[in-house]
C-alpha cells in the first residue's frame, strides 16, 4: 500500500509529503504526556532511509530556490536501460518558516518530458487536521488519484484515504490507519484496507507496532497480506544500520536485507551499502564537492543471481 502513496521518482526523502518527526523526537517527553506517534507511512522510514537507492545512468539535478516559498528543480536523466527524460519539479510552500522537522504544507508538481504528471497538495486545514491529494499520470492516463485526511490527536493519529475512486467502473480502495502511543517508546496501531472492484471486494487488516529506544527502533507490521519487520540502529554519530524482513503472502516470497549508512562529515561524504537475500549487493557514495554547491553521486548495484550490474552517476547542483 505504501507504494501507491509514494512519489514515483523521489530520490528524496525531502519530497516525502507527510515526513513526520524523526525517531529522536518520539523519545522526548513533553510535559509527561505521550507524544504524537506520527503517520502510519513513516513507521518504517528510519530503516528505509539507511538503504541506498538504485541509481542508473547519468542524472543531473539542478535545484534552484527562487524565494523562500518557491523551489524549482530540473532533472536530466540519460539512461541505458530506460528512455532518457527531462523532468521539471516545482514546490510551493504555504508558509516560509519551513523546517525539515515538521510537515510542511505545500503544493508539489512534477512534469516529465513524456507528459507524465505527479502532483501533490498538502494542506494543514486546522492545527490537527491535515489533508493530502495526490494525482499521478502516465503520459495521458491517470494512474493514481487519491485523497487523504489525517487527524492528529494528542497521542494518536487517525487517517482515512480514498484511493482511485472510480464511479464508472465502480471501484475504490479505502484505507484507514490508526496509531496510538501506548507508552513513551511503544506505538501500536493498525491499517484496514478495503478494496472493491466490479467483480470482487475484500478487506485486509494489518496490525503494526513500533518500539523505540534512544539508539534503535524496531517496527513490525503483520497481517493477512504478509509481514514486514524492520530494525534500525544508530551505532554512533557516523554509522547507522538497518535490517529489514519482508514476507508477502501474495507473491509467496520473503526477503531479508541488511543496509548501513556511513557519514563522514569532515570528508563531506555519505556512503550507503546494502546486501540482500536475493543476492543483490549495492553501494552508493555521495560526496559534496565543497567549494562548488554540487554533490557527486556514484552508485552500483550487482545482482549476482542474474549476473547483472547497474552503474549510475549523478550530480546535484544547488
Amino acid at each position, binding site marked *: 500500500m505504501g507504494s501507491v502513496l509514494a512519489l514515483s521518482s523521489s530520490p528524496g526523502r525531502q519530497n516525502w509529503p507527510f515526513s513526520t518527526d524523526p525517531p529522536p523526537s518520539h523519545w522526548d517527553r513533553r510535559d509527561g504526556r505521550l507524544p504524537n506517534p506520527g503517520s502510519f507511512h513513516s513507521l518504517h522510514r528510519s530503516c528505509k532511509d539507511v538503504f541506498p537507492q538504485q541509481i542508473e*545512468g*547519468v542524472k543531473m539535478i539542478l535545484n534552484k530556490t527562487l524565494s523562500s516559498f518557491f523551489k524549482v528543480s530540473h532533472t536530466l536523466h*540519460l539512461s*541505458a536501460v530506460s528512455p532518457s527524460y527531462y523532468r521539471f519539479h516545482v514546490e510551493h510552500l504555504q508558509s516560509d518558516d519551513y523546517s525539515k522537522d515538521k510537515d510542511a504544507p505545500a503544493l508539489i508538481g512534477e512534469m516529465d518530458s513524456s507528459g507524465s504528471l505527479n502532483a501533490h497538495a498538502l494542506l494543514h486545514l486546522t492545527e490537527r487536521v491535515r489533508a493530502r491529494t495526490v494525482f499521478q499520470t502516465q503520459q495521458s492516463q491517470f494512474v493514481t488519484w487519491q485523497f487523504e485526511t489525517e487527524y492528529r490527536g494528542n497521542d494518536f493519529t487517525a487517517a482515512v484515504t480514498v484511493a482511485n475512486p472510480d464511479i464508472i467502473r465502480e471501484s475504490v480502495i479505502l484505507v484507514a490507519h490508526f496509531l496510538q502511543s501506548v507508552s513513551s517508546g511503544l506505538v501500536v496501531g493498525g491499517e484496514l484496507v478495503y478494496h472493491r472492484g466490479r467483480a470482487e471486494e475484500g478487506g485486509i487488516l494489518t496490525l503494526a507496532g513500533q518500539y523505540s529506544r534512544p539508539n534503535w527502533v524496531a517496527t513490525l507490521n503483520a497481517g493477512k497480506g504478509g509481514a514486514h519487520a524492520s530494525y534500525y540502529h544508530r551505532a554512533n554519530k557516523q554509522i547507522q544500520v538497518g535490517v529489514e524482513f519482508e514476507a508477502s503472502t501474495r507473491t509467496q516470497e520473503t526477503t531479508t536485507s541488511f543496509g548501513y549508512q556511513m557519514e563522514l562529515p569532515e570528508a563531506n561524504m555519505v556512503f550507503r551499502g546494502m546486501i540482500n537475500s536475493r543476492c543483490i549487493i549495492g553501494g552508493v557514495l555521495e560526496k559534496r564537492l565543497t567549494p562548488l554547491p554540487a554533490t557527486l553521486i*556514484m552508485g552500483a548495484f550487482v545482482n549476482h543471481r542474474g549476473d547483472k*550490474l*547497474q*552503474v549510475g*552517476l549523478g550530480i546535484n547542483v544547488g
Partner: protein
Amino acid sequence: RYLWRFGLSWACAPTDCNSQGTSADRSLYMGSVLAAASPSPAPAAAGGSQGVQGLASFPPGFTMPPLSSVPPTSGSGQQMADADPPLPNPGTYEECHRKCKEVYPLQMEGVRLVVNKGLSNHFQVSHTVTLSTLGDSGYRFGSTYVGTKQTGPAESFPVMVGDMDNTGSLNTQIIHQLASAVRTKIAIQTQQHKFVNWQCDMEWRGEDFTSAVTLGNPDVLVGSGILVGHYLQSITPALALGGELVYHRRPGEEGAVTSLLGRYTGDNYVATLTLGGAGAHATYYHRANDQLQIGVEFEASTKMQDTTTSLGYQLDVPKANLLFKGTVDSNWVVGATLEKKLLPLPLTLALGAFLNHRKNKFQCGFGVTIG
C-alpha cells in the same frame, strides 16, 4: 582479419621517476593500464572514433619505446642549428597517428578497479577487477618486467609484459633490443586456450629512417600468414614520408595492400595523412597551450564504404589534478571522460559516458585506480 600491432610505451616504474610526469606520460601510462586491462574489447568498442589503418588496428597506449630521447613529433628542427643539420629519426610508422589518437577519450562502462603495485625498479604488477554491464566481468592480472640493459635515460631492455584473465586468456609481449639499431618484438594473444594472434616483428632504425618487418600469425601447416613491411624516411626536419606494404596469404587466396604516409610536424602541430588501397586516414593534432590539446581525424574506408570525422580535445588542469577528454563524431556520438587524482591518497577516479544519438544508446562507467 585483424592484425594487432602492439608496442609498449615504457612508463616509469613508480619508484623510478617523478610522480608528476607530463600529462602525455601519464595518459600513456593510464592508457597502457587501461589497454592492458581490456585489449580485446577496446578496438571493437571504440567503433568509429578509433580508426583502422589499413588492416592494422591497435589499442591506444601501446607504442614502441622511443629510441632516442628526442620524441619524433617535437619540432624536429628546433634543437638543430644552421645549415645542413643531420635529419632526425622519424620514429616508427604506427606512432604517426598516435598523437592525435591519444587525445580521444576511451569508452568506459561498468565499474573497474585497478591496483598497481611496483615491486621493484624492474618489476611491476597490476590487478584489475571489472564489473561490466554488458557481460564478461572478470579479474585480470598483469605484470611488467623491465630488464637491466639500459639504452637511454628512460628505456631499458628487455621489456616483458604479460597479462592473464580469469578465463585463461593471455596477452603477452616481449621487446628486446638486439643491437644498437635493431629491435625485435614478439606478441602473443590467446582467447582462453586458443591462440588468436602471434606475431614477430623486427625494426631497424637508421639515422634518418626507420624500417620494420612484421610477420603475423604465420601458420606453416595451413599455409597462411600476414607479412607487413614499413618504411619511414625523414625528408626534411619537419617532413617524413613512408609506406606500408601488407601481404596476406591464405590457402586459396593471397593479396597485398599498400599505403603511403606523409607527416608534417610544425611548432605545435602535427598533420599526418595515410593514403592507400584500404582508404584514407588523415589526422591533425594541435597543442593550443599547456592545458589544451585538440585532435581532428578523418577516415575513409573503401571496405566499409563510409567516412567518419571526429573531433577530440583534452583539457589538462594539473593544479586541480584533473584530466578531461571529450569527443564529437560525425556518427552522432558524443563522449567524455574525466580523470581526477584524489591527492592525499594514491587514488585516481575516472568517470566516463558516451551517448550515441543516432541509435539512442548510452553508456556510462567509472573506475578507480590505486597506485
